[in-house]
C-alpha cells in the first residue's frame, strides 16, 4: 500500500473476458482486469473461486478457453517466460539435490551460467547456500523459501505466488513478506494468492477478491472478516 509513486501507465497484466472451462465446470467465468506494474497484489477468495486457475493462466501453464491475456504487452505467455517467476504449493524442486544444486540447474534453463547469482538469491531468502542437505529434508518453511529463491533467480518482472505461506513457520513467513516487499520496490509486479492475507496487510498495494470464477471486488485495505465486500461484477454482464 505504500509503494513509491512510479510513473507507469502501461499495465503489466491485462486480462480480457477470460473464461476457463474444465469439462462442465467453469473455473473462470469472465474475468476482466488490469494490473499496474511495481505493485503487490494479494488475491483472496474461497476454495474453488478460481485463484489458482487464474495464476496458472498468467504463468502460461494453462490456456484460457476464451478471452485474452496480455503479459507485458505480449499475448503469448510463453514468449514472456523470461520475465515470469512462478511459485506454487508443490516446491518445484528436486528433493534429491541440495538447494544450490537445484538453483544451478534452473539457472541454466534461463541461460544464467553464473553460479554466484544462485548463491546470492539463496542468501536473499535467508538460507545458507553452502547447505548440502537435499531439499527433501528441509522443513516446510525452508522449502518454501528455497522455492521462492528459484522463482526469483532470474530477476523476473512478474512474480506469481500460489499459497506461499501455507504450513510455513512464522519466522520464515515474515522473512518472505519482507523480501516480497523489497522485490516489489525494485520493480517487480507481485501476485500472491493466499489464505493468510493479514501477513501482507502492511505491504500489499491492493487486495483482489475472487468468488465463483470472477473478480468481485478490489480494495486498498483489508477489512475485518465481519464486513466482507458484497459481490460486484466489474467485468461480467449478466442476462441475455
Amino acid at each position, binding site marked *: 500500500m505504500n509503494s513509491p509513486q512510479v510513473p507507469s501507465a502501461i499495465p503489466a497484466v491485462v486480462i480480457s473476458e477470460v473464461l476457463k472451462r474444465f469439462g462442465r465446470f467453469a473455473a473462470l467465468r469472465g474475468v476482466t482486469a488490469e494490473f499496474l506494474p511495481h505493485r503487490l497484489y494479494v488475491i483472496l477468495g474461497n476454495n474453488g473461486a478460481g485463484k489458482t486457475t487464474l495464476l496458472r493462466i498468467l504463468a502460461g501453464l494453462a490456456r484460457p478457453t476464451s478471452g485474452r491475456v496480455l503479459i507485458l504487452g505480449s499475448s503469448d505467455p510463453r514468449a514472456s517466460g523470461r520475465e515470469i517467476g512462478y511459485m506454487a504449493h508443490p516446491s518445484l524442486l528436486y528433493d534429491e539435490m541440495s538447494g544450490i544444486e537445484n538453483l544451478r540447474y534452473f539457472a541454466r534453463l534461463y541461460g544464467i551460467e553464473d553460479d554466484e547469482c544462485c548463491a546470492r538469491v539463496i542468501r536473499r531468502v535467508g538460507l545458507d547456500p553452502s547447505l548440502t542437505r537435499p531439499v527433501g529434508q528441509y522443513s516446510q518453511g525452508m522449502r518454501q523459501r528455497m522455492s521462492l529463491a528459484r522463482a526469483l533467480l532470474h530477476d523476473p518482472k512478474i512474480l506469481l505466488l500460489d499459497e506461499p505461506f501455507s504450513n510455513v513457520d512464522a519466522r520464515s513467513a515474515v522473512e518472505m513478506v519482507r523480501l516480497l516487499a523489497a522485490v516489489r520496490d525494485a520493480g517487480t509486479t507481485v501476485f500472491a494468492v493466499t489464505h493468510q492475507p493479514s501477513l501482507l496487510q502492511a505491504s500489499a498495494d491492493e487486495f483482489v477478491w475472487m468468488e*465463483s470464477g470472477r473478480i468481485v471486488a478490489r480494495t486498498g485495505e483489508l477489512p475485518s472478516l465481519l464486513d466482507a465486500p458484497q459481490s460486484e*461484477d466489474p467485468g461480467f454482464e449478466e442476462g441475455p
Partner: protein
Amino acid sequence: MKKAFPILAVLTVPLLGYAFYQAMFVAPADQMQGEVYRIIYYHVPSAWTAFIFFFINFVASIVYLIRRNPKADAVAVAAAEVGVVFCTVVLVTGPLWARPVWGIWWTWDIRLTSTLVLWLIYVSYLILRRFSQGDQMPVLASALAVFGALDMPLVYFSIWFFRTQHPQPVIGGGGSIDPRMLHVWLLNWAAFLCYGLLIFWACYRLENLKRELEETQSLESMLEAPRFR
C-alpha cells in the same frame, strides 16, 4: 444436412441386401475354392473401407493439431471407431477363410499383417482417448494418430521385405479377377461405405452433441449469481 441421414439410411439397407444377394448367389463359384471364397466379398471391401476411414482420421487429426477445431476431433474419433470395426471384420474373416482353403489359421501375409498392426494402433488410440484425463485428450490422441499414420508405410515395407526373405502363402492369391467378381466386389464396397458413412455420421453427431451439452451446462453455471460469503 439432417434430411440426408434418413435418405442415406433408406438407400443403404437395400444396397446392403442387394450386395449380399449378389455375393452369395449371383457371383460365380471359384474354380479351386468353391463356395468358401465368397467370404472375399466381405474381407476385401471391409479392408478398403477401414483404410478410407483411417485416412479420414489421419486428416482430421492433422486439422485438429493445426486449428484445434473440436469438430475435427469429433470427425477423428468417429472415423477411428468405424475404422476399427471394419478392421476387425477383416481380421476375423481372414483366418476364417484361410483355414478351410489353405489349412492354416494365420500367415504373415502382407495385407493381413499390415491390417493387424493398423488395428493395434487404432485400438491403442481409442484406449488412449478413454484413459486420458484432462481437456487436452484430443491433442494427445491426434499426436498418436499422426504417429500411427507415419508408421504404416514402414510397417508395409518391413513386412514386404520380410516376406521376400521368408516366403509365405498369400491369402487371396494373385491371378486375374473375373470381371463379374470385380463388379460384385465394388458393389459390396459401395454398400459397406454407405453403411460405414451412416454409422460415422451418427457417431459424429453424438460427439458434437456431447460437447454442446457440456458447453451449455458450463455456460448455465456461469450465469449463476455468485454465492455470498
